[in-house]
Structure formats: C-alpha cells, structure tokens
C-alpha cells in the first residue's frame, strides 16, 4: 500500500526485475499523471454515497448489477415494447483494445466509466461519448493471467476504484483519473490476479482475486476507500481453529489441501444494506479433483454471508460439497422476497453453474436457510437432493476422480457462467442466460511435478485431455430462460441454436429483456412476458458484457460494450471445430467498442 502514488514498484524486488537496459531508459518513477490521459476534467461530479447506492435511482447505473440486490433491472420505461423497434445507436467509442470486455458501463449523473482488458478505465460523457480521461494501469511487464479482462469499477465518494490484473486495487480521482492511492490485494505471480469488479460497501471497497486453477486460497478483502489500507481480509477456506476447517480432512497425499484449495471470490457480491450483511459467491475447488482434497471443503462452491464491519462469515449455503467439476459458485445470489409455504420471506435466488437453481432464505443475522433447488439444465452428476437441506448425492460415473476419464453434464463452464441473470419485479420473472446440451470429460491427474501457487496451471488435469462435447447435435446450446420466482417453474425460453450464450441479461420496466453473448454478434430485445424477439442489432463483435440503462437530461439510453475474448472465444472455437463448415459461426472478430442506443424523438 502506498499513498499518495509516487512510485511504480509494488512486488518485492520487482524494481530489479527489469533488465539493465530498461532501467536506463524507463525506470523513472511513474507518476499518476503518466498513467492517465486527461482530456477534460469532469465538472460538478456527483459524489457517491451509501444513500445513493441504496436508492439506485434509475437515471444512474452505479453498481455492476444496477442495485445492491443484484437485480440487473432498470425502472426506466421510455424504451418499451412499442418503440424498441426504433432503437438505434447514438454513439460508439472504440476501446482500442482486444481481449474479452466483460465490464458493464457504470454511470453516475451523466458520466460513464468503463473498465477494459489490460486494465484501462475510460471516463466518458454518457450522452455524447466524448472522453474525459483514460487511465492505463501499469501492470508489470512480465504479467501472466488466465483471463485478461475486467468486470467493472466501483464508485464511492469522489473516487473510482479499479482492480488490476496485477492484484492491486487503485483509487482514482473521478474528475481527472489521477491515481490517489493503491492497495495490494493479491499476488499475481502465484496466480492471484483480479478480474472482479470491486464493490463499495460502507466506506470500504471489497474485492477478491481469482486463482482457482492455480492453487490459490481464495479470500475477500475490504480496503478503506480513503486510505487504501486494508480494513479486513477473510479467507474463503477456514484455517485451523476456524469453523469449517474440519471439512478439510487431513487425509491422503495432501493433508494440507486447504492451504491451496481454491475458493476464489472472483465476481462482485450483493448487499443487504438494511441488515448490513454482504453475500458473496465462492468459486471452485483447486485442484478440480475432489478426491485430492477430501471432505466437504467449506466454503468452496458456496454463498457466504459476511459482516461488512469485520468480514466475519455469519452464514453460508454450500451448493454442492467437495466440488469436482469446476462448478464455481462465484455469482452471489440476488436478494429478493420469495413466497414459501404461504409466507413472503426475505430470500436469495440464484441459478448456479452446477445447473441447479436455488431458492434460499436469508435471516437478519446472516444465517442462510434452504428452501428449494431445481435443475434448469441437464445435470447427470447429481443423483438426488435432500429436500430439507439441499445436500446432493452424486453419481460416481459422472464425478471426476484422479486417474480416470470421467464425463459429465453440464460442462465445466456450467449451466451458466459469470454472466448475470436479471429479475423484473413487474413480471415476477427471473431471466437466466443458459448453456444447455454441453458436456465434457477429462482425466484427473495428481500434479506432483508442479508446485501449487507457483503461478502454474494446477487444476489436476492435462488440458489436452479435456474433451468438450455437444450432447445432442441439432439441439440448441445457448438460450435464455424465464422462471417465475414464486411458482418455481419455467415460463418461457428462447433458444439461440448453435452458439453458447455468454451474455448478461438486463430487464426494464419497459417490459423488455436485453441479451447478447451469442456468436452471431447480435444484441436483442425480447418481450419480458413472452420471450418474443422484438429487436436485434449486429454489433462489431460479440458482447460478453452486461447491458445497462440510464438517462441523461431525462432521455433513456441502453449501453453495452462488445469485445469477444477469453473463455467465450475459446469455447466457441472448441465447439465449432465439432461442426461442419457453415453450421457453427467461428468468425467472431475481437475488439472493444462501447455501443449506446436510444430511441430518437
């Protein structure tokens, strides 16, 4: 941690890692000004407060999912079922970068902030697309990460917070983009890099690193927004003496498996501001093979409830024990009232990567109760579910183990991956971006020639042995499903055919659902009640970032960033190779462009 920002090196000894020649030509201290191209300072910037975040005024989009509850819902209705056919782009802005663009535009009183791969942050006029400033994070030259992406920024006070692939959290002056202070969160050199959007909660900024494929023990860190000092850090895998540690049995060849057992918290969580409880998703186990880390392995593949004051874990629900499928539980459930046994209860609802949707109850103290679980895609690994607790039994034929090829459905990318589902309180429906009909197999290996947390891939498989298969050719893979949150039944679904769906969902009071993410580059608006496609538009590249909505001077806009890359790009090539030419589109160009649409008067 340094404040204010004056020098570049962060990792111990890093200053010397550059070559002698480079020292001679480039080792001058990098001032914050050098990292930011300032075109025009933002005037009359609107300070972000807890009250504004809780209120979530629909003119803004202040949080990754629009509100603390995680709904991906906009109350705006100027753009609606009747006029959406007239939706047209009003401005575009090229990010000038490749790789996967996964960040929603964060909009505060007419100012838009977009995070990009390579950790640039753009501040733009949300009505015109004119640049105020661009921050280019000084990632180290020898950086290596599995996912070159960023999933958004956090706003608090007059600052913008951007996490770096190098494991840092950076506080920028919202008006100028100048870096004011920096916190070290993760050590990227062991695999603890950050892609997640940070979350502003009660004056702290919460963010955790990735690393579930590298033997990193996951954690969440709260950083003081003013000083960039660590407020608290909570590991997702309890250490000795902590509740839950007993679920890591000291048996087998790796009795200390908890030290590098994964459980990354790599997507932003949600917040119950009334009861002051944060809810966060916990990722997959590391290595992927559960038989190499015996026990239930709390809190892998779980939601945890935490006290934002000190990070104490006050409740949890583990979606499945002893994860062996890379079915990370990274997406936090949304906060929503649910009907159960004739009562309306504060609930949690989430379609998980393991292919099941979970209805959970949240108690004021953070305890989480189980209500129900239902599959929304085909899952052949879970044999049965205890209706009281939600605990599954497994089919050993489809549970990966060391030393044997095992296949299972859904694939390791899950029934859905990181893209956000959306809830519309007017329809009472939850809209889920789904990948059905996809399976995979691999051979589990015991990697004793690779050290955990050494920055090397440590998932317990040899990646060429990974085979991804389409379960039934001719059936759709990508789709969007709409579920009634209270009857717990699917109401409609829209199949996209020979493509995966890597698009987050936005739903609006205009009775619309926006979804992109398919390999045909389309963004589409669907009728929220029926799933009928009302409008489509081909983007420059497939969008794998969440669409958002906001107003400037009373006019409603829809914004989405296109820019294919990372796992969406990878899987599209892998699956496309199994189809005849022309059956599956592998021609998806890369390159980031922010698209903003409106209905002209």
């Amino acid at each position, binding site marked *: 941690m340094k404040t204010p920002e004056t020098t570049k090196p962060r990792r111990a000894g890093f200053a010397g890692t550059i070559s*002698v020649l480079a020292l001679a030509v480039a080792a001058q201290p990098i001032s914050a000004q050098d990292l930011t191209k300032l075109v025009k300072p933002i005037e009359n910037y609107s300070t972000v407060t807890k009250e504004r975040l809780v209120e979530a005024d629909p003119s803004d989009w202040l949080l990754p999912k629009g509100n603390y509850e995680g709904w991906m819902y906009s109350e705006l209705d100027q753009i609606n079922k009747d006029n959406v056919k007239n939706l047209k782009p009003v401005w575009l802005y090229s990010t000038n970068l490749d790789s996967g663009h996964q960040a929603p535009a964060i909009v505060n009183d007419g100012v838009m902030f977009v995070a990009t791969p390579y950790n640039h942050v753009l501040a733009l006029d949300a009505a015109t697309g004119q640049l105020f400033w661009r921050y280019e994070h000084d990632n180290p030259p020898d*950086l*290596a990460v599995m996912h070159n992406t960023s999933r958004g920024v956090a706003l608090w006070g007059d600052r913008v917070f951007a996490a770096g692939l190098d494991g840092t959290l950076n506080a920028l002056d919202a008006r100028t983009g100048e870096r004011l202070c920096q916190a070290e969160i993760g050590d990227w050199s062991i695999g603890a890099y950050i892609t997640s959007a940070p979350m502003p909660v009660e004056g702290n900024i919460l963010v955790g690193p990735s690393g579930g494929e590298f033997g990193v023990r996951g954690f969440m860190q709260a950083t003081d927004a003013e000083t960039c000092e660590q407020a608290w850090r909570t590991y997702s895998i309890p250490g000795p003496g902590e509740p839950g540690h007993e679920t890591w049995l000291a048996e087998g060849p790796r009795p200390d498996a908890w030290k590098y057992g994964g459980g990354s918290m790599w997507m932003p969580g949600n917040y119950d501001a009334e009861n002051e409880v944060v809810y966060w998703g916990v990722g997959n186990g590391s290595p992927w093979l559960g038989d190499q880390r015996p026990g239930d392995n709390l809190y892998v593949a779980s939601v945890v409830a935490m006290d934002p004051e000190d990070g104490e874990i006050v409740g949890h629900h583990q979606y499945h024990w002893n994860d062996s499928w890379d079915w990370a539980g990274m997406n936090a459930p949304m906060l929503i009232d649910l009907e159960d046994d004739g009562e309306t209860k504060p609930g949690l609802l989430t379609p998980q990567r393991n292919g099941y949707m979970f209805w959970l109850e949240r108690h004021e103290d953070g305890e989480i109760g189980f209500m129900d679980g239902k599959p929304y895609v085909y899952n052949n690994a879970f044999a049965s579910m205890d209706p009281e607790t939600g605990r599954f039994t497994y089919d050993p034929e489809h549970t990966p183990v060391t030393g044997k090829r095992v296949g299972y459905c859904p694939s390791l990318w899950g029934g859905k991956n990181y893209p956000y589902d959306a809830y519309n309180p007017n329809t009472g429906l939850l809209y889920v971006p789904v990948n059905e009909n996809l399976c995979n197999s691999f051979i589990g290996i015991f990697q004793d020639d690779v050290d955990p947390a050494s920055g090397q891939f440590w998932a317990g498989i040899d990646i060429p042995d990974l085979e991804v298969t389409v379960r039934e050719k001719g059936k759709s893979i990508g789709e969007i499903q709409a579920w009634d949150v209270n009857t717990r039944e699917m109401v409609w679904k829209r199949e996209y055919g020979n493509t995966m769906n890597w698009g987050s969902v936005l739903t609006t009071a205009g009775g619309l659902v926006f979804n992109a993410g398919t390999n045909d580059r389309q963004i589409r608006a669907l009728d929220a009640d029926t799933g009928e496609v009302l409008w489509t538009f081909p983007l420059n590249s497939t969008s794998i970032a969440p669409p958002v909505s906001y107003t400037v001077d009373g006019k409603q806009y829809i914004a989405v960033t296109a820019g294919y890359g990372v796992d969406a790009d990878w899987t599209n090539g892998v699956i496309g190779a199994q189809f005849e030419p022309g059956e599956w589109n592998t021609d998806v160009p890369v390159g980031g462009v922010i698209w903003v649409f409106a209905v002209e008067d």
Partner: protein
Amino acid sequence: MTDVNEDAQSGPCPCCQDKTQPEARPSEGRRSLLKAVGLGALASVLPALSGKPARAAAEPADMTTQIGDQLTRFQQSRRGPSLVLDDIKMSSKQLLVLPKDPETGIVRENDRRNQILLQRFPMEELSEQTQAISADGLVAYTAVCTHDGCPVTAWDRKTDTYMCPCHQSQFDPRNMGTLVAGPAYRPLPALPLALDEDGVIRVARDYTTPVGFGTKI
C-alpha cells in the same frame, strides 16, 4: 545469420514500444558470453557480437534471460542444477525451466518472462529454420503464451504440439513455435540454444521475436 541481439544491445528493443514494458530479451556483452560459453563453441553462431559497453549492475535473479545463461528446472524442489543434453529425454513433454547466471549460479527467477520451455527431438524432425536455432535437437521457446501470457505447459500428444492450459492455443515446437490453433495472436518466440564444451545447455542468442502477450506488446 542475423544477430538480432545487436539491436538489443544498443537501444530499446522493438518489443519496448510501451515505456512501462521493459525488454524481455536476453542481452549480454560478448566478453562475458565468451567467457562463459567458450569461443570455440559459439563463434559460429555469434559472428556479430562485438563487445558493447557493459551495463550497470543488476541483481542476477532479477535480470531477464541473458546470452550464455545456463538452464535449470522451474520446479522449486529441483531448481538449481544446470541442465545438460542428457537430462532431456528425446521426444518427451516439454520441461519448464529457468535461466541461471553462469557466473554466480543464481537462478533468474524474478521475472516471469524468463520461464522457458525446453524439449528435445531428433534433428531431422525439425524444420530447417528450427534446426538453425537448435543444439543437437534441443529447442527452447518462451513459456509466455502470446494470447494472455499463461505459461504454455501442456503437451498435446495427439498433435505433437504445445497447448496453453488457459485457452488451448497450440504451437508447433518443431517449426519455430508456429501457431497451429487457438486464440493466440502469433507464434511462440523461440530461444536459440547452444551446448558448451561440458555439454551444458546455454542460451545462444536473443529470442527470435519479442516475448509478450496480446496485441499490445
């Protein structure tokens, strides 16, 4: 034979367009190289080195790969001993290695761009261009995937190619690291090797192309 290291000794290398991205290529004056490797062993492959002024001192562990460096295994428990030809089994999976300073024996382990893939094939299996940078069938490439920078540590037995575990980009080690499949942007940079009088594997010259990932290197 072009000595690409010549440029690297006299100014910023082509890979350093961004001033925050210092060079990732091996570089060393002729004097120390010849001292380390022996004139006879390398004179034929290094005709253009001409003893540029020595640079300021840096900690060996922090430096990028240097010409004349020896190689040692990456795995912590086996890190240290210099690799010789016979350590590398013919046609087996690539070995992840690091360069080490021949003078001090210090492993250059602090810059991830120093991670190197080492493999050995029958010379006749290598393309003509690859033969020219090989030492007795030994080939070396950067481990830094040109896509997202992940270490390219997997070996696809079906196609005899390197495969990146992160996004499955594939590269052909018998043919200059050519990109065979996957989302990467360009071939894997190759690192020319030589053997010294004692059979110890040495870095002979600069990488054939800059080490780095993405389109912004």
